[in-house]
């Protein structure tokens, strides 16, 4: 819609305060990086980059100078005379970027630009995109399903669900204080526990009675009244595992459970801990893994602990969000 290939049912699109809803694609100062790059196969790299300026009727000297500048920016000088079929995926990506940026658009629209690349190249291109963004200073609108890409590249993220924006904010805002359970589940891993607010405590805290859990203290920045049902979101990396019950503290929560699964992931270990009917994921960083005492084992009884400020409450989450938390099956064939 921003590029102009589809028309919105309602509302309007404004760039720099100017309504562009009715403009055809070729009259918008928006350029697009297509998922498949859509480079013109019959033109060389240089001719591809020069397409926009040529159509716009720039003088030849200016086209040549700008194309040379773009080739330098994207490190493509050596490929300038090749056809798109003769260059690699990452190079095609850079041609697509140069071809769009040369027109100096108000907004550069990137439609899942890295989806066609393999993991290593994707990580590399992500950094290159960021560097180019820093150099040209044009607004990038980056569409992606990959939350990692979104987090690492963005100044502001808009999380969308079925065409509606759920939340707009910086990566940290989106991650640390998601407004809806969809956002919490979509960005990063999280555990959801249903519960009811039972008591408002002093200093913006409240007591919570999730089913199967003992009473829990949670930061209540949304001022949710007593008696309301909520979902408690517990990020796995904010939880700690203890062998014995830790020292009681007003703002520290501790819940007893039993380890059901241990997945060693190198940078950290993921534990699935059974607490009543819930399976809670916990990430444990191991700094001195080999020097440590014996590692935690399967079927060991443990305590999960977290600070009241490290969890957040959301309005009760809906069925459709369940899939997003990507629970692993508890039995073979479950859910398939």
């Amino acid at each position, binding site marked *: 819609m921003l*590029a*102009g*290939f589809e028309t919105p049912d309602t509302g309007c699109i404004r760039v720099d305060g100017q309504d562009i809803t009715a403009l*055809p*694609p*070729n*009259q918008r100062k*928006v*350029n*697009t990086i*297509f998922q*498949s790059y*859509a*480079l*013109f*196969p*019959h033109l060389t790299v240089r001719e591809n980059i020069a*397409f*926009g300026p040529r*159509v*716009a009727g720039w003088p030849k000297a200016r086209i040549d100078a700008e194309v040379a500048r773009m080739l330098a920016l994207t490190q493509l000088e050596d490929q300038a*005379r*090749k056809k798109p079929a*003769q260059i690699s995926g990452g190079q095609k990506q850079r041609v697509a970027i140069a*071809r*769009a940026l040369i*027109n100096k658009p108000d907004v550069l629209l990137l439609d899942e630009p890295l989806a066609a690349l393999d993991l290593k190249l994707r990580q590399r291109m992500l950094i290159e995109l960021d560097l180019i963004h820093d150099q040209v200073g044009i607004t990038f609108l980056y569409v992606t399903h990959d939350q990692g890409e979104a987090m690492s590249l963005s100044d502001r993220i808009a999380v969308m669900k079925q065409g509606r924006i759920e939340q707009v904010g910086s990566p940290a805002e989106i991650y640390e204080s998601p407004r809806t359970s969809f956002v919490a589940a979509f960005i990063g891993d999280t555990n959801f526990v249903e519960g009811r607010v039972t008591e408002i405590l002093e200093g913006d805290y409240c007591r919570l009675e999730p089913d199967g859990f003992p009473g829990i203290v949670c930061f209540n920045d949304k001022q949710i009244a007593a008696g309301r049902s909520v979902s408690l979101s517990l990020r796995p990396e904010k939880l700690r595992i203890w062998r014995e019950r830790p020292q009681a503290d007003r703002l520290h929560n501790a819940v007893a459970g039993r380890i059901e699964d241990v997945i060693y992931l190198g940078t950290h270990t993921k534990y699935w801990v059974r607490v009543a009917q819930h399976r809670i994921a916990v990430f444990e960083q191991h700094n001195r893994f080999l020097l440590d005492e014996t590692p935690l084992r399967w079927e060991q009884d443990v305590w999960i602990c977290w600070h009241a400020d490290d969890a957040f409450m959301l309005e009760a989450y809906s069925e459709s969000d369940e899939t997003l938390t990507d629970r692993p099956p508890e039995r073979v064939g479950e859910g398939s």
Partner: protein
Amino acid sequence: MKAGRRGEWLLTLPSFGWLLVFFLVPTLIVFAFAFKPSDPFGGVGAGWTTQALVGIADPQYAAILWRTVWLSLLTTALCLVLATPAGYAIARAEPRARARLLLLVIVPFWTSFLIRIFAWKVLLHPEGTFKHALVELGLVPEQATLLYTPGAVLLVMVYTFLPFAVLPIYAAAEKFDFQLLEAARDLGAGRLRAFVEVFLPGIRRGLLTAFLVVFIPALGSYVIPDLVGGPGGEMLGNKIAQRVFVDRNLPHASALSAFLILAVLLPLAAVLALQAQRRRSGVSGEEGA
């Protein structure tokens, strides 16, 4: 790998054999007959002579050759102009609609070619309903002759060859990545400019095929000008037929045929050679860079 190659050769052998025996050899015989004297019974005499070759230098052929070339070129041009949007539209249609549209392109082949030309004769006939309708609509004057003119030949040739142009252009358009048009529009090109600068180069192979499958048969047209052309719409094919059936002079007809074949083949070979050379120099330029 080697066995696969051999299998390929064995599989293509029958078609090559067929072409050799029923296409290449007869063509060479036609070339050879051009150097033979004619005999009074309509056959070929003994010995060799250039009499037939001298015979085709007759100035009457110049006008007919000129008409043959411009009618064929115009037919080809009109076919390409009509077939390109058609191929584009079919390729962009929904799969179900696409199958139906393709069927519509092929349907005329279910009726004999000759019957379809006779149908045009009826339509264009001075007393025909089509002619009357045109007069009623004020599109042509009462006295206009539609049949037996070069225009009639052009009309029926375009009608006949259009499907042969639509099919290769559709085949090329169907493989075309239409997102490239979106990309061109995104980069500021208008619809027409995107079509001309991105779509047409994208289907250039289809266009070349369409050009060849229309232009070459059009040059050799015989039935169409014979039935709807009249004396003013004759083409070289009619002259060749007259030399065979009326004059019973096979060498003369052979010389004309050979001339037509060379007139088509030589420019074509030149174009292909030029393209190959340009491709080679393009590649070497690539290595030099």
